[in-house]
């Protein structure tokens, strides 16, 4: 008899979309029967089982002072820590405030800024505690999530590709839209995982899965400029869901197209 693995799901600063992907996997997870026990998953149930946990799945970024302490408690109580989604793995779109003064945003957005207690930056979980595996995506891909959970349960290495979106795009049979339509695309510097959805519909890749394993930002931004993108357009395209991922952040800081 295998002891069930106690799984806990924790939300930090996020839109909850990645947790919805997890909920979408419940049928498969239920089929695992007594191999797993969902100990904590507020989006699904109020029921809660005390730690420690075998596996903690964390969504969201560290954004408010309380998060700093909470994530440490989660880490201390978890044998294996999996972070899911762009917020947890790079800080999310809310990390746009990292490049501006956060209090200016607060006073512009909220009627009573004094109610808001926020950190100056939105951080990936891994910048506060040790993380065992980061699953990218905004939102994450359902099959990839199942793969990572299965790999954990059966003690094997998750098969999550870190190469470019182009590889999925070509397998899918989509002709390169940068080449055939001169459409700016972040695919060559972005990690695969989504199945190359956007280029299949004629849209350039938005970079939802963050930087691929060896992104050549300079070569890509130079090509985007030669397709007619301005510095500002290139900067904005890099400053979305993974704005705080170092290669995207640095390329946006230093983009120089001579325009």
């Amino acid at each position, binding site marked *: 008899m295998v002891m069930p693995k106690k799984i806990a799901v924790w939300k930090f600063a996020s839109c909850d979309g990645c947790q919805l992907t997890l909920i979408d996997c419940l049928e498969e997870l239920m089929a*695992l029967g007594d191999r797993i026990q969902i100990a904590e998953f507020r989006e699904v149930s109020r029921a809660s089982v005390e730690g420690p946990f075998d596996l903690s799945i964390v969504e969201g970024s560290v954004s408010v002072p309380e998060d700093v302490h909470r994530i440490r408690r989660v880490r201390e109580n978890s044998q294996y820590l999996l972070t899911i989604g762009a917020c947890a793995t790079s800080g999310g779109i809310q990390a746009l405030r990292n490049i501006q003064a956060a209090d200016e945003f607060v006073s512009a957005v909220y009627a009573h800024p004094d109610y808001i207690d926020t950190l100056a930056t939105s951080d990936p979980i891994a910048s506060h505690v040790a993380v065992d595996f980061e699953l990218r995506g905004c939102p994450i891909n359902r099959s990839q999530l199942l793969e990572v959970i299965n790999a954990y349960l059966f003690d094997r290495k998750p098969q999550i590709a*870190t190469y*470019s979106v182009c590889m999925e795009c070509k397998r899918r049979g989509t*002709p390169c839209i940068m080449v*055939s*339509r001169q459409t700016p695309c972040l695919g*060559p510097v972005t990690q695969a995982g989504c199945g190359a959805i956007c280029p299949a519909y004629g849209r350039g890749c938005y970079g939802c899965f963050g930087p691929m394993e060896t992104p050549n930002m300079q070569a890509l931004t130079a090509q985007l400029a030669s397709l007619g993108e301005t510095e500002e357009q290139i900067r904005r395209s890099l400053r979305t869901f993974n704005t705080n991922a170092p290669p995207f952040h640095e390329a946006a800081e230093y983009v120089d197209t001579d325009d």
Partner: protein
Amino acid sequence: MSGNRQIGEQYRLMKRSGLDDLIKVLRVLDYRVIGPTESNGVIEFAELGDASELPWGLRDEQKPGSYSVSKGGDRAFEFSNGPTSLKRYFHPTERHLWTVDASGGQLQFEEARVQVPKYAFLGIRPCDLASLDILDQVFLNGVETNRYYESCRQNSLYVAVNCSSAGDLCFCASMETGPTARSGFDISLTELRSSDAYRVLIEIETDRGRSIVNQIDTSEAHENDLSLAREQSDGVARSMGRTLHTWGLRERLQENADDPAWADVAERCLTCGNCTMVCPTCFCTTVEDRASSHDQKYERWNTWDSCFSLDFTFVSGGALRQSSKSRYRQWLTHKLSTWVDQFGVSGCVGCGRCIAWCPVGIDITEEAARIGEPQARA
């Protein structure tokens, strides 16, 4: 008049309606007809229902990192190769190998049963035909026979089209794979450029090809038709957009692994893998085990991989080819040099796809010319 002499049973002529007949006959024979058609702004291989779906009156313009289709001419095969090669039909992007079922308490292995389609390829260019010869070396004459590939090769029928114009990125003449198909086809077609009405010269290479041609409306071909086709071919060979100097290339690439030109191209290379995906001969794959733990079944799949991915050389301790430089060097050196050591031929057929479909337009002919040639960089 000698020019009008008949030239035997190997050659026939057909009109435009002959292409309609040809596709009809192939479909009656239960072939899935795969030919070029325009979709999504590119001309690429897809399943055809009839000859009207061919890219009549369309041309393409190809430059490094750029491809576009425009109107021009009145023929069906005025364009160069599109992004898709025949590779994906013979060597699918992913292929189920076997399943293991653990639900009964012990492991039950079952080989995947894959239906191999019966394809008729219409409009294969000589360079793509040559790529199949190269893949034969890899999949049929290597250590293991790839049985899917073998069955697909045997089931398929090959209708080649000889090029009547050369693209800006073409260099089949350098690689001696074109512009005229010499073997490996059942039938070849040459659209004749002449002031007369649309005419196609048919060359019959196999009995299978002959029985198909016998079922369509053709007329006798004459010696002047053949000489026109040869003139066209010579003209195409002379107007290649690119040249790859192959003399001494095998040694030059192997002996200059430290050439600074490798670092130069690595600065431009995205390591995205597009070149390997569009290449008609890049065959590398990885093996994935797909587990669906809840029903205790595990599947082993074979999927396309690329020497540009880090995981490709992952061993205990990490990936061997960490730098972009080492990965680009591996690709180019294998393609043009060590491929010869391994398979007896170059891995490049001169189709130009890797030049057009590189998002930043890296040109294999230029890069190969730089290695070991300091003056080429000046």
